[in-house]
């Protein structure tokens, strides 16, 4: 029984294989390999390795970074001929503006204007602006499964009625961080990627973008995203589970979600990076799932390389081409199949009727995503109302200290802005457990440790991590070390830590959580994105751990987040919420009421007020990030709010995760029915709002 499909109304793709879907189809039909020596940059004057580089027309220095340009091109193709804007944009990326940031840092640039598109979220935000999206804009960063996870999110948004039309995809551009990082892990094959080959020595890095327009109102005959599965290995920061447990779980979940039996799969698009470990673990998982009756299968990464966050979306788009045009793509780069894998990869492209494709994407942090693409059965909404998400536990860490110290100050409206002390950051964590972890991952673990295990059952069913800017310490240390050595030496530990979803992978390891593991990013909207994802992927009776964290970094923060750097207290911090969908009297209910995009020149307070009109009355309105009294007061007037309005963000700080600390304050007030001191009235319903360019609101009410 399928949970409902999302018809694909538009496909955009750009990679070394071709500038659009037609080019790509031609290249795949011809079985071409487009891996060539890197030309974009030349780290340490070492021989360039084969990569999948895209030719982009020369651009002036002030042009958006490559990642943004690739994403815009793919989105433009997906939206060709469309009049109505998308209701939502969901993009997976791991690099954002990194290629430009690297060049700027090498040149000694420090002016924040130059770094305006550093953040991952700016990719999706650019697309939302360009195509007039007024709804949720989500940025997913789950390493190499990002693009597939973004599409899985888009599918669920359509099923749950959050959107009718979702622009969903993935993008990454080549940059030094990933090229030198993967090289330091000795995961790049000097001869070019040879997935599943006996002589394989690693992957080839690539850049690409792929965007799908998912449209619930498309004709039911359209090729559709029919289902998907997300899982986490919870095994190792970078290595896959040796028996492919997580990969198997993702494929099984995807098939069940789509209502398809293994025997119904016509073509399996492998993650197939060409690394020894990935291909071995994936092959094992595939054999465990399909037994002796293997479907036609191949990896296309020998033809175009591994485009990281783009890969899952690109291969979903490829799967749609395979179904629409009856294509089985070849496993390019293969000369001698590895007998240990016991797979029979397609040696040459061929034509066949293809109704159903399973497409795998696995990434660092043990993040696995599998999609089912096939002939559609029309859109369908998931049936049934679910009980609300309740808050079963909470934790916060700020410059004031741990949960109790932070809440004690916030309840009395005393600032907890400041830099977290090292003792607080490592509280309860064994030194050997955190010896390789930087500030952000330590903060995430400190939050999980402070939260404990409030609910029954040992591990949360899903982990949802929100960060505005990611792991700045490792990012800086990696680039600083790289540049100091004339681009010759890169630290593998810093590279692994610099990945946005590193802390989420650590949380999964910490809790033993093998379900969905999603990292989202987007300034002050990060928490709202994580709550939306948690709401979409937490089944009745299930639990979710939502953690938000951001660190202050003396060198990077002033460049990429000048508003935060203007705060002389250099605050950082985070918060964690243990959520569940179980009947539990007394646990407050949390609901995300709105997550919108206010176009340039449009009053975001007005946008938010429109979404909230006709809602309930609240005892208190809390501003989630520092936004000043003006917008909050105007919003309160628009809503006819007669209670108090407090700029909670001003008490916490301007970092991306600050709204989570404010939400924890709201939850604490409601669960104890306490007033915010000095006494006004006990809080039974609190509205937490953000009035920036991506305004949102959540309510915490008595259960």
């Amino acid at each position: 029984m399928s949970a409902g499909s999302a018809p694909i109304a538009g496909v955009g793709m750009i990679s070394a294989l071709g500038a659009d879907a037609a080019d790509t189809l031609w290249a795949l039909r011809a079985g071409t390999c487009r891996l060539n020596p890197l030309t974009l940059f030349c780290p340490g004057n070492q021989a360039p390795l084969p990569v999948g580089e895209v030719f982009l027309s020369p651009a002036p220095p002030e042009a958006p970074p490559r990642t943004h340009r690739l994403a815009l091109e793919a989105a433009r193709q997906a939206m060709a001929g469309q009049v109505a804007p998308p209701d939502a944009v969901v993009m997976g990326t791991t690099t954002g503006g990194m290629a430009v940031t690297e060049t700027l840092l090498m040149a000694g640039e420090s002016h924040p204007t130059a770094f305006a598109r550093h953040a991952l979220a700016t990719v999706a935000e650019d697309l939302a602006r360009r195509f007039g999206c007024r709804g949720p804009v989500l940025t997913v960063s789950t390493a190499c499964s990002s693009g597939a996870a973004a599409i899985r999110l888009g599918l669920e948004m359509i099923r749950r009625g959050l959107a009718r039309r979702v622009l969903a995809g993935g993008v990454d551009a080549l940059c030094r961080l990933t090229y030198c990082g993967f090289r330091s892990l000795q995961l790049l094959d000097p001869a070019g990627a040879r997935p599943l080959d006996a002589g394989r020595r690693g992957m080839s890095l690539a850049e690409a973008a792929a965007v799908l327009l998912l449209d619930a109102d498309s004709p039911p005959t359209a090729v559709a995203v029919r289902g998907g599965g997300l899982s986490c290995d919870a095994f190792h920061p970078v290595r896959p589970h040796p028996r492919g447990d997580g990969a198997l779980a993702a494929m099984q979940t995807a098939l069940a979600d789509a209502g398809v039996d293994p025997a119904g799969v016509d073509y399996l698009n492998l993650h197939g990076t060409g690394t020894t470990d990935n291909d071995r673990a994936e092959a094992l998982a595939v054999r465990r799932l399909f037994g002796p009756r293997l479907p036609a299968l191949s990896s296309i990464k020998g033809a175009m390389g591994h485009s990281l966050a783009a890969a899952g979306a690109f291969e979903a788009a490829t799967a749609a081409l395979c179904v629409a045009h009856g294509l089985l793509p070849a496993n390019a780069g293969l000369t001698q199949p590895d007998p240990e894998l016991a797979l029979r990869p397609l040696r040459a492209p061929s034509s066949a009727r293809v109704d159903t494709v399973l497409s795998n994407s696995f990434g660092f942090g043990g993040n696995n995503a599998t999609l089912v693409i096939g002939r559609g059965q029309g859109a369908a909404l998931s049936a049934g109302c679910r009980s609300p998400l309740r808050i079963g536990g909470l934790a916060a860490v700020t410059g004031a200290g741990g949960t109790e110290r932070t809440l004690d100050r916030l309840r009395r409206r005393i600032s907890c802005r400041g830099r977290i002390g090292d003792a607080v950051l490592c509280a309860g964590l064994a030194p050997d457990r955190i010896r390789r972890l930087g500030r952000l991952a330590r903060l995430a673990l400190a939050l999980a440790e402070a939260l404990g295990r409030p609910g029954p059952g040992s591990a949360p069913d899903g982990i949802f991590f929100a960060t505005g800017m990611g792991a700045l310490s490792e990012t800086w240390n990696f680039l600083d070390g790289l540049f100091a050595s004339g681009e010759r030496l890169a630290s593998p530990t810093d590279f692994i830590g610099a990945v946005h979803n590193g802390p989420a992978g650590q949380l999964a390891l910490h809790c033993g959580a093998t379900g969905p593991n999603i990292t989202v990013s987007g300034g002050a909207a990060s928490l709202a994105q994580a709550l939306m994802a948690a709401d979409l992927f937490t089944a009745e009776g299930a639990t979710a751990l939502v953690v938000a964290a951001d660190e202050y970094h003396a060198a990077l923060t002033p460049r990429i987040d000048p508003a935060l750097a203007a705060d002389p207290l250099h605050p950082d911090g985070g918060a964690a919420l243990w959520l569940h969908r179980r009947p539990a009297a007394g646990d407050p209910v949390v609901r995300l009421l709105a997550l919108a995009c206010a176009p340039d020149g449009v009053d975001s307070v007005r946008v938010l007020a429109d979404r909230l009109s006709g809602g309930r009355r609240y005892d208190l309105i809390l501003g989630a990030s520092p936004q000043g009294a003006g917008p909050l007061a105007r919003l309160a007037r628009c809503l006819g709010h007669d209670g108090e309005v407090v700029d909670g963000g001003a008490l916490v700080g301007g970092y991306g995760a600050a709204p989570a600390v404010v939400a924890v304050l709201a939850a604490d007030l409601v669960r104890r029915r306490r007033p915010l001191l000095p006494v006004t009235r006990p809080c039974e319903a609190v509205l937490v709002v953000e009035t920036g360019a991506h305004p949102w609101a959540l309510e915490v009410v008595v259960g």
Partner: protein
Amino acid sequence: MEELIRTLAHKIVALLNLQEIPAAQIDPDEPLVGGRLGIDSIDVLEMVMMLERDYGLIIDNKTLGAEVFATLRALAGYIARNAPEAVQ
């Protein structure tokens, strides 16, 4: 050789942030990787970088790596043989 072994022990403790293991307590002949020190494959790659940075030596295959990083003594021996000038 003994001095190089001690130098390497201190370097490795600092590089890998082995807070709970005093450099002097690492036995030159105990297994560096996969033993009580908690050093794993990522740490080995970190040591590969250190070897290139501090001694100009490049380790780019697993067989050689397993040999070189077997013990502190093996590592010191490899450096002494291949980068004698750096040790001076």
